[in-house]
């Protein structure tokens, strides 16, 4: 064995990030062992975790790109809901679940575009506008369920439209999950290794520099916001077309907010956000498991178990908070002085 190579390998560990990653991986494997020891099938938990991770990851990665460019969209929850409905409508229009996912993607892009326009040109308060989107979705999803399909509160659509996961002997994996993971990796590479990625980050950190270089800050932010929301839209469409096969009024159920937490935790780094999304998806599934396991449930009332993902979010965000990744100019409209 080449001693030099070995040395290089271990040198990496001095890097905090790599250490953190390996540390998390080791911790995760230990947790899996504990779960197996407690007789709660870990492979199934991972499977559920991956599916639950998918909409969170898509929304979070999209928002990472958005925030790196300098706009903050807290309306993810609303986008998930609206694009879910539009995605299903699109699937029925074209008779295909995959087309529905695409329609959801485009619907998300549209919402992101409008948001960008009013944020950049209208100099809107982005937080307020984001809450507006959430409020709008709260009403619109229920209204559309009634108006499009004439039945209040729920819509179960044909199984033909559901995009199903790929089943392997080791478990099932959904193609959209693969897309989500790929999106995170590609986003990370894109942001840090390409010119446009550099521009995006610059637009978030120091928009004046971008402006002086002759590139339009507005255009960068609009593109980032559009694409970011589009990813979120894909996640929304996935909820119904890939996961549940039906829409209910509360289909998004707070996932958009958890995605936001992932972004905060990750400091807007797409790969870390992916990891956070997986943690939350996993905890969610774990919570349900614990709720039915005869020994444990008598000790802890199910309500506290349900709180676990949210408390975990708070703890993680509190402990791991760092403004390391957050662009300095995020959330403020760029005004040419």
């Amino acid at each position, binding site marked *: 064995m080449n001693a030099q190579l070995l040395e290089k390998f271990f040198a990496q560990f001095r890097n905090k990030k790599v250490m953190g990653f390996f540390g998390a991986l080791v911790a995760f494997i230990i947790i899996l062992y504990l779960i197996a020891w407690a007789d709660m099938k870990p492979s199934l938990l991972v499977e559920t975790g991956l599916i639950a991770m998918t909409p969170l990851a898509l929304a979070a990665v999209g928002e990472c790109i958005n925030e790196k460019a300098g706009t903050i969209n807290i309306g993810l929850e609303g986008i998930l809901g609206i694009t879910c409905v539009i995605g299903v409508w699109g699937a029925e229009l074209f008779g295909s679940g995959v087309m529905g996912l695409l329609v959801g993607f485009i619907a998300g892009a549209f919402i992101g575009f409008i948001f960008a326009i009013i944020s950049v040109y209208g100099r809107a308060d982005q937080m307020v506008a984001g809450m507006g989107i959430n409020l709008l979705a709260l009403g619109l999803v229920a209204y559309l369920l009634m108006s499009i399909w004439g*039945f209040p*509160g*729920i819509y179960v659509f044909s*199984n033909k439209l559901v995009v199903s996961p790929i089943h392997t002997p080791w478990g099932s994996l959904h193609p959209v999950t693969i897309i989500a993971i790929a999106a995170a990796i590609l986003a990370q590479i894109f942001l840090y290794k390409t010119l446009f990625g550099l521009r995006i980050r610059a637009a978030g950190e120091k928009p004046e520099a971008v402006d002086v270089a002759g590139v339009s800050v507005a255009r960068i932010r609009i593109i980032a916001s559009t694409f970011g929301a589009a990813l979120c839209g894909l996640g929304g469409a996935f909820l119904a077309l890939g996961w549940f096969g039906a829409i209910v009024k509360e289909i998004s*159920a707070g996932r958009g907010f958890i995605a936001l937490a992932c972004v905060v935790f990750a400091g807007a780094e797409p790969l870390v956000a992916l990891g956070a999304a997986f943690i939350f998806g996993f905890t969610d599934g774990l919570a349900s*498991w614990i709720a*039915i396991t*005869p020994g444990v449930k008598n000790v802890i009332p199910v309500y506290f178990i349900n709180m676990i993902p949210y408390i975990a979010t708070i703890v993680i965000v509190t402990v791991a908070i760092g403004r390391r990744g957050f662009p300095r100019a995020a959330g403020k409209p760029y005004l040419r002085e």
Partner: protein
Amino acid sequence: MGILINGNKMEVLKISKFLDDKGINVTAAIVIVIIVIAAVGIGAYVATRPAAKPVFKIAVVSDIGGRGDLAFNDMGFKGGEMAEKDFNVKMVELISKSEADYLPNLRAAAADPDVKLVVGVGFLLTDAMSTVENEYPNKDFMNIDSVPAAAPNGLGVLFEEHKGSALVGALATLLAAYYDYPHIGICLGIEIPVLWKFEIGYKWGCDWAVSWIENNKPELENRGICATPIKDRVLWTYTGTFSDITKGYDTAKAMYAEDAIAVYNVAGPLGIGINQAVNEVAAAKGLKMGPPFWIGVDSDQDWMNPSFCIASMMKRVDYGVYYTTEFVVDNTFRDVVQSTGGIMTLGIGTTIEGIPITGIKMSDLNDLEDFIQFGAAAGKLPMPAENIRTAARALRDNQPSWIWNAVSELQTKITNGQVTVPLAMTENVVAYWRGILG
């Protein structure tokens, strides 16, 4: 960089300038114009509305989380629709979006001169019902699942869900014994007393079935669910929601992973999540037919997945609404209130005023027909109706007949009073039975 809307800009500026010169604020002017247009529009609308003809209406007020559960609340409306057809009445709906809506909804319904019967669907509407029925003594009021305060115009309709739950609990347990599964499951919504009836009934049915196996099929005695300690046989949890279907999915997935042969849905739309979990298990193992199964509730939910939904515990809320309407139409409502003491309990094989009204039933293939229509209204059926019928029949035929016979035996015994299914409506009773059955 800016966005200009060309063309009309000059025109608008000119008018703007004109008005500004006159010291008239453009804003105020536009607001006034809008108000005028609105007033004219509304005036026109009001003037041209056709005079309403008196119609016999029944109003169905649903609970929060309301419509779209494919179960409880939707059954209420279904009953109204049936009544519309048969009795030539018109049903109007009011959907409560929050508890604050109960009183205003009931009052709005009762205040409508055409409405003769106001139906409140749900346990939580009790107090509101009690208040409003006194405010409108010449209207008739009916409350599903609970009893409003005693009044000559108020009827409460209760159902014996515990008995039906015992039936499906027995069914699931017998299947578990046959297929050698250690558990059965039940997924509940919010922990309210109505749901306690389901929970304890289901567990009791499981216990009865195990005893039945010991007496009649001793060869199955030492395996499967019979070998599981009594308190661990039924996997159960209150998800705390009647609307978040993720919880149904997560819970069911966990239960199936623990080798529960069937999950009983007692949380309305969460059945969709449970269904999803079943589909996943089926796809992963390449199954075309259960086990594993799930059990529907309130309406006949078998149509949602006829190869895996083995049966449903039907709570015929629709009959409750339908027959109450008949009483009102026939003017016998007040008599029924008097003769039943204000409480009409519908169970297995009940008769009211000489009319047999089945309130609780474990679904069979005949019921499926009715509900295929119901499902078709909610969206597309998962497959053509004929396929649904075939699949459902195939699934049932695939189970040994002694299982179905045993359940019938239990039903007979319940109807005759030979066995008593515990009715758990208070904390003490629930705690007692949980102590025994888990």
